[in-house]
């Protein structure tokens, strides 16, 4: 950073020198040498890489909670008991009892139309650490008490299924 500032100072001095109608400023005029071009190039490349990195990560999905369409509705996480109940519920079962067991989601994600003329609601739930210990090793990819997120999908008055999000 120090180096960059010095270079910018040099440029400022250079333009100052030129503006003063040939009068000599106290510091000698800096000519735009190869060294300056190289430094400017390095700055531009760094800037370019930084912008591209930002764009790339913006293109990737951020954390699933960034896709919340509603404000956070409940901070309660799913307990081990609730989680156990969720994984035993068959796909296609009635929605109301499932929602009653899971209680309020963390938030709702935007609805999707996957099947023609059918809107699918997606609820995002967070798992409590003790519940996440029960997850099978394949699904639980990270160590420690990394909270797991679960997306639950409903269509009309039916519960269709869930998936873990491992971010």
């Amino acid at each position, binding site marked *: 950073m120090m180096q960059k500032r010095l270079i910018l100072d040099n440029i400022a001095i250079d333009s100052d020198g030129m503006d003063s109608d040939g009068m000599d400023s106290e510091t000698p005029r800096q000519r735009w040498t190869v060294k300056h071009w190289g430094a400017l190039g390095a700055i531009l490349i760094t800037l370019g890489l930084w912008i591209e990195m930002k764009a790339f990560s913006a293109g990737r999905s951020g954390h699933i909670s960034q896709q919340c369409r509603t404000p956070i509705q409940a901070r309660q996480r799913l307990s081990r008991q609730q989680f156990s109940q969720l994984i035993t519920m068959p*796909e296609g079962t009635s929605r109301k009892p499932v929602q009653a067991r899971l209680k309020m989601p963390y938030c709702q994600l935007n609805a999707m139309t996957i099947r023609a003329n059918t809107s699918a609601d997606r609820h995002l739930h967070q798992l409590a650490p003790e519940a996440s210990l029960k997850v099978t090793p394949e699904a639980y990819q990270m160590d420690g008490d990394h909270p797991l997120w679960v997306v639950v999908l409903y269509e009309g008055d039916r519960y269709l299924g869930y998936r873990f999000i491992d971010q």
Partner: protein
Amino acid sequence: MDIKLYQSWELQAGEKIAGYDITGGLGDLSIAVNGQSIYTPFPGQTALDRQRPNCLYLDAPEVPAYRFRFCGIQTPKLGSVQKGEAIATVNTLQFATLQKQANGTWAMVEPSRKLLEQFLQPI
């Protein structure tokens, strides 16, 4: 990947009839993509059908209970895929939306236009 379909038609894609391959069946939508790419609008995982290596499945954690099948594909991207990534190129695409059933089978359902458009266009 091996999946069991809910619907068991007498004639299924992947079988032969009179020596010819059945490339699409009831439940597949045929689209002339003509060599262009198909994309995934969400992060997920892809895998080839074990019996039909020109069929690619896409699973996305953000879309529970559904799976998508793309047959007739070439140059698949296998494994983890990111939002917006091209997952294959294809001439004539046979597309199916599959919904998980309680008995573990996958049922072909009518795809929505909105979602299928997302598979056919970059973000």
